[in-house]
C-alpha cells in the first residue's frame, strides 16, 4: 500500500509541469481541470494511505540516496504515519477545494497567467507534501524552502505592482532567516549523530548521545525556523503583508497549510522538545505573546484580509502555546480545525472581495447578508467556530489547548482566554461590518454585488460543514471516556513524549467551570461587538491614542526598519563607498602610485652632470669599503630587522 506514497507528490508535480509548460497553449478550463485534478488525485491516494495507516501503522519508503557524503547519508525517503497522513488529508483536501475555488476566482486573468497561477499552486502543494512526507529533516527542509519559494512567487503573482513584490521579498527573506536556524539545527544533528532521519534521531540510543545542551540548542534553532515559517514574534510581520497575494492563496498558504509547517515540525520532533523543558517554555511564551499581540492588532484593522491575517497569526500563537505546554495533540487538532474555519473565512472573504470588485475595506461594505446568503451563512459559522462557541470545531481544539496550558501554568490560561475574547470581538466586528447593517459601498458596486458561482460556493459549503463538525474527532475526556479519537489516532507519534511528560488531570468540576466561564464570556463579547458595530457609519475622524497605535500595528515594521534594515543599508553603503574604494582598492592602487612617485624622484638622480655621477661613484666606493669591513655588524643589523 504505502508503495503508492510517491504518487502523492507526483501528481501535483506533473500538474505543475503541464500547466507551466502548456500555459500558453491550453484553455483555462483545461488548465483548471489539470490543476485541480492533480490535487484531487493525490487526495484520493492520501485517503487510501490514511486508512492504510489507520489499519496497520506507519512506514518509510526510500526512493533513492539523495546525498551520501563521507560523514552521513541522506536518503530521499518518505515517511507515512499518523501525523503525516493526517496532514496529507488536510493539504490535499483543502488544497483541492481551493483549487476548485480559484478556477472561478482567478477567471479574469489572461490564460498564461491563469496557467502560471495554477502551476505555482501545484508546485506549492508539491513542496508542502515533500515537507510533510519527508522522512528526515533534510527532505523536510527541501519542502520547507520550497513552500517559501511558492509563497514568494504567489504573493508577487501580480508582479506589476511593486508593493506586492516588496511584500513577496519580505516574506522570502524573513523565511530565510528562520531557515538558517533550521539549517543550523540540522547541521548540529548531523554533526552529533551523523543522521537526520527521524527514525534514527528519535531512537533512544541516539538521543542519549545528545547532551541536554545539544537538545536545547537544536530545539531552539528549529523553533527559530518555525518562527519564520509560522509567523511568530519576532518574524511575523511578513504574514499580514503576504495578503498581497490572491485571496485563495492566502487561504491555502497563509492560513491552512504552509504557516502550520512549524507546528508540524515541532509535533514531528516532539520527543526532542519534551526533553528540552527550557525550549518548551520559550515556545509557550512566544506563542502566547504572539497570540495576544496579534489579536490586539486585529482589533483595529479595516482590511478584511488583514484582520484574517492577524487572526491567523494569533491562532498560530495558540498552537505554539499548545506545543509549548506539551499538548501536541491539541496543537495538531487546532491546526486541523483552524485549517477548516480559517480557509473558510478567507474563501468567504474572497467571495466578498470578488463580489465587491476587489474592494477590501470593510468600512465600505455592510449588509451583504441579503446579497450573498451562502457566503454569509458559511462565514457566520466560521466566525462562531473560531470564536470557540460549542459545539463548533474551534471550541474543542482551543479548549484543549487552554486546559493543557492551565495545568502547565494558570497565567497562560488567563492570558489565553483574554486572547480568545479578543478573537471573538474582532471576528464579529468583521462579520458585522461586512454582512450586517446597510450597504456602505458605491452604487455600481451595489449593483453588481451577487452570489459567487458554484465553484466558489461549493468549497464554502464543504468547509462550513467541516468546521461545524470537525471538532467531534476530539471530544474531551470530560464529556465521554475515550471519545477523543484523534488523540488515540496520534498516540503512537507522541507516545515517547507522553512517557516523559508528567500528567496531572484537573478534576472535572473545574474543567466544566472553565469551559462554561469562557464560553459565557465569549458570547457576551460577541453580543457587544455586534451591537456596537451594527449601526456603524464610515467616519473620517482619525483614531487617537491606543487605537491609533493598534491601527498602525504597534509600529513594529517601522521599528524593524529603524533598527535593522536601515543600519544594514548604511553599513553596506559604507563598505561600498569607503572601505572598498578608498580602503582596500586604495591600498592596491597606492602601491602603484608609490612606484610612480619613486620613479619621478629617482629620475632626478640622473642629473646629466658627469661630475655628480663620478662623485656618487667615489662615495659608493667608500661605502663599499665600509660595508666590506663592517659586514658582521651589518648582517646582525639585518638579522634584527628580518
Amino acid at each position: 500500500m504505502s508503495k503508492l506514497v510517491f504518487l502523492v507528490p507526483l501528481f501535483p508535480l506533473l500538474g505543475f509541469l503541464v500547466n507551466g509548460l502548456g500555459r500558453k497553449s491550453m484553455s483555462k478550463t483545461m488548465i483548471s481541470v489539470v490543476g485541480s485534478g492533480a490535487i484531487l488525485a493525490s487526495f484520493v491516494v492520501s485517503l487510501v494511505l490514511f486508512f492504510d495507516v489507520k489499519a496497520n501503522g506507519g512506514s518509510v519508503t526510500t526512493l533513492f540516496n539523495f546525498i551520501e557524503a563521507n560523514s552521513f547519508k541522506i536518503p530521499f525517503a518518505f515517511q507515512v504515519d499518523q501525523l503525516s497522513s493526517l496532514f496529507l488529508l488536510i493539504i490535499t483536501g483543502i488544497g483541492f477545494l481551493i483549487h476548485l475555488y480559484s478556477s472561478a476566482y482567478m477567471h479574469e486573468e489572461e490564460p498564461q497567467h491563469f496557467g502560471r497561477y495554477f502551476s505555482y499552486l501545484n508546485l506549492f502543494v508539491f513542496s508542502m507534501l515533500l515537507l510533510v512526507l519527508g522522512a528526515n529533516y533534510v527532505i523536510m527542509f527541501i519542502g520547507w524552502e520550497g513552500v517559501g519559494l511558492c509563497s514568494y512567487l504567489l504573493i508577487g503573482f501580480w508582479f506589476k505592482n511593486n508593493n506586492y513584490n516588496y511584500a513577496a521579498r519580505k516574506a522570502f527573506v524573513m523565511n530565510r532567516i528562520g531557515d538558517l536556524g533550521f539549517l543550523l539545527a540540522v547541521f548540529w544533528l548531523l554533526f552529533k549523530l551523523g543522521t537526520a532521519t527521524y527514525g534514527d534521531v528519535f531512537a533512544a540510543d541516539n538521543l542519549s548521545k545528545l547532551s541536554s545542551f545539544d537538545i536545547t540548542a537544536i530545539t531552539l534553532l528549529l523553533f527559530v525556523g518555525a518562527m519564520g515559517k509560522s509567523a511568530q514574534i519576532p518574524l511575523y510581520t511578513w504574514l499580514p503583508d503576504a495578503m498581497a497575494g490572491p485571496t485563495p492563496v492566502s487561504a491555502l498558504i497563509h492560513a491552512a497549510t504552509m504557516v502550520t509547517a512549524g507546528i508540524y515540525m515541532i509535533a514531528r520532533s516532539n520527543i526532542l522538545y519534551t526533553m528540552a523543558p527550557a525550549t518548551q517554555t520559550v515556545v509557550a511564551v512566544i506563542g502566547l505573546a504572539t497570540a495576544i499581540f496579534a489579536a490586539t492588532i486585529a482589533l483595529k484593522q479595516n482590511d478584511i484580509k488583514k484582520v484574517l491575517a492577524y487572526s491567523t497569526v494569533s491562532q498560530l500563537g495558540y498552537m505554539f502555546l499548545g506545543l509549548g505546554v506539551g499538548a501536541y495533540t491539541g496543537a495538531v487538532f487546532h491546526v486541523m480545525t483552524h485549517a477548516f474555519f480559517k480557509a473558510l473565512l478567507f474563501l468567504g472573504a474572497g467571495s466578498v472581495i470578488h463580489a465587491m470588485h476587489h474592494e477590501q475595506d470593510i468600512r465600505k461594505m455592510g449588509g451583504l447578508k441579503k446579497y450573498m446568503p451562502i457566503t454569509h451563512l458559511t462565514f457566520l459559522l466560521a466566525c462562531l467556530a473560531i470564536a470557540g462557541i460549542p459545539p463548533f470545531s474551534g471550541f474543542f481544539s482551543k479548549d484543549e489547548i487552554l486546559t493543557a496550558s492551565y495545568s502547565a501554568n494558570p497565567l497562560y490560561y488567563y492570558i489565553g482566554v483574554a486572547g480568545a475574547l479578543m478573537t471573538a470581538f474582532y471576528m464579529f466586528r468583521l462579520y458585522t461590518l461586512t454582512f450586517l447593517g446597510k450597504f456602505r459601498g458605491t452604487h455600481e458596486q451595489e449593483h453588481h454585488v451577487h452570489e459567487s458561482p458554484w465553484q466558489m460556493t461549493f468549497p464554502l459549503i464543504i468547509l462550513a460543514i467541516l468546521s461545524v463538525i470537525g471538532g467531534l474527532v476530539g471530544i474531551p475526556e470530560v464529556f465521554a471516556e475515550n471519545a477523543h479519537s484523534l488523540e488515540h489516532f496520534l498516540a503512537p507519534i507522541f507516545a515517547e513524549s507522553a512517557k516523559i511528560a508528567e500528567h496531572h488531570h484537573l478534576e472535572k468540576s473545574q474543567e466544566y467551570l472553565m469551559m462554561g466561564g469562557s464560553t459565557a464570556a465569549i458570547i457576551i463579547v460577541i453580543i457587544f461587538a455586534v451591537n456596537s458595530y451594527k449601526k456603524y457609519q464610515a467616519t473620517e475622524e482619525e483614531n487617537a491614542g491606543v487605537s491609533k497605535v493598534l491601527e498602525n500595528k504597534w509600529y513594529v515594521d517601522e521599528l524593524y526598519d529603524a533598527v535593522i534594515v536601515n543600519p544594514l543599508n548604511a553599513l553596506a553603503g559604507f563598505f561600498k563607498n569607503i572601505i572598498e574604494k578608498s580602503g582596500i582598492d586604495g591600498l592596491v592602487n597606492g602601491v602603484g602610485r608609490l612606484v610612480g612617485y619613486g620613479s619621478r624622484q629617482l629620475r632626478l638622480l640622473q642629473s646629466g652632470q658627469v661630475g655628480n655621477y663620478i662623485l656618487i661613484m667615489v662615495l659608493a666606493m667608500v661605502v663599499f669599503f665600509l660595508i666590506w669591513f663592517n659586514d658582521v655588524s651589518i648582517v646582525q643589523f639585518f638579522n634584527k630587522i628580518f
Partner: protein
Amino acid sequence: MNAIIVSALLGVVMMFSGIMFKNKTTYTAIAVAGLLFLLVANLLNSYGIYVIHVDTHFLLNFEQFGMFFNSIAIAATLIYVLLSGKAIEKMGVSVADHYALIFFVLCGVSILSSFNGLLMLFLGIEIMSIPLYILTGADKRNLKSNEASLKYFLMGAFSTGIMLMGITLIYGGTGSFTLGIDKSLSAGGLIPRTSFLEIAGLILLFVSMCFKVSAAPFHFWTPDVYDGAPGVFTSFMATIVKAAGFIAFVRLFDQHTAALGPSWRLLLGFVIVATLLIGNITAVFQQSVKRMLAYSSIAQAGFMLFALYGANDMAKEGILLYASAYCLATIGIFSVLIKMKDYTFDGFNGLAKTQPVLALATTICLLSLAGIPLTAGFFAKYYMLASVVKAGGSLGIVVIAVLFAAVSVYYYFRVIQAMYFKDGDAEASDVTTGYKVGLLLLSAFIILTGLFPSIILGWFYF
C-alpha cells in the same frame, strides 16, 4: 684564439673595403660573410681546430664556456647586422669603418671570454671600450651623440683608472696577475692571512666591472649614453657588449665568490637590490622607449648579477641563457625601434594596425624581456633565481627580485598597450619583407627557446 685573430683580421678587411668599394650595401654583405666565417672559425676552435697555433703562455684560456659565449655573441651580431644593416649604412659616411670597429669590439669580446689573468682582462676591456666611444659619437652632427660619447669616454677612462688601481693592489698583495691561484683567499674569506691590499684591489676591480655592466650605483653613464648614441649602435652596446662584460665578470669572480665569504654576498646583495630598484623604478616613468630600454637594460643587469651571487654551474649556464635571450629580444626591439618615426611610447600607438608583424615580434620580444613563460626570457630569469636558491642564498632577495620583475611588466606592457590597445597611426620606415621574415624567425626562435631551453643549453654539453 681563432675568434680573436679572425675578428681582428676582419676588422682590417673592413677598413680596406672602405677604400675599395663605394657601394654601402657591399659593406654589409662583406660584414655578414665575415661574421659567418667568424662563427665557423669559432666553432672549429671549440672542436680544437686552429687557424694558427699560438702558445699563449697561459695568458688566455680557451674553455667551452668562453667558446660557447663567443658563438652566441657572434651569432647575435650576425642577427643584429642582418636586421639593422640598413640602419648602419644610413649612419654617417664611414660605414666601413663602423663595421671595422664592430669587428674590433668582437675581438675584445672574444678576449674577454677567454682571458686568464688581469692583463688580458684589462686589454680586452680597453679593446672593447675604445671603439664604442667612437661608435657612440658616430652621429657627429648630433649634439646628443657627441655629448654621450664624451660622457662615456670620460667616465670610461675614470673607471679604467679605478680598475688599474685595483689590479695593482691585487698584484701587490699576491705578486701575480693571474686569477684564482691565491690559496689564502680560497682558504675561506677574511682570515688574517688574506692580504688587505688584495681585498681592496678586488673591491676596486669589482667596482670597475660594475661600471662596465652598468650596475648601480655605477650605472649613470648607461641611460645617457644609450639614449644619446645612434639607435643602431645602442642596440649593439646594450646587448653583445654588455653580455661580454658579464661573461668577464663571471669568469673573473666565480672562483672567488665561495672564498670571499659573507661580506662578498652582502656587498653583491646591496648592488643587486640597488640595480633592480633603480633600473625598474626609474624606467616606469620614462616617456621615450629608447630611454626606457636603457633603464630596463640596467634592470636586466640586476638579474644577471644573480649569476655572481649564485656562482654555481646553474649560474654559468644561466648567464649564457640569459645573455642569449636578452640579446635576441633587445636586438629585435631595437631593430623595430630604429625604424619608428618617434621614439616615445605614443609613437607606437596603433602599430598593430599598420604593421602587425612588427607589432607581434615586438610583443614577443617584450614578453621575453619581462620573463613571461613560454619565452626564452622566462628560463633566463628562472636559471638566475634557481642558481641563488640552489646556492642557498636568502629567499628574501629572490622575492625582492620577482617583485621588481612584476614592476618591469608595467613598463614593458606599456609598449604592448600602445601598439594594440591605443589608436594611432604609428608608421615604420622601409620595412622590407625580408626584414619581416627575419623578425618572425627571431620571435619564433625566442618562443622555441622558451619551450625547450635545451636548444641553447644542449650546446653547452657538447
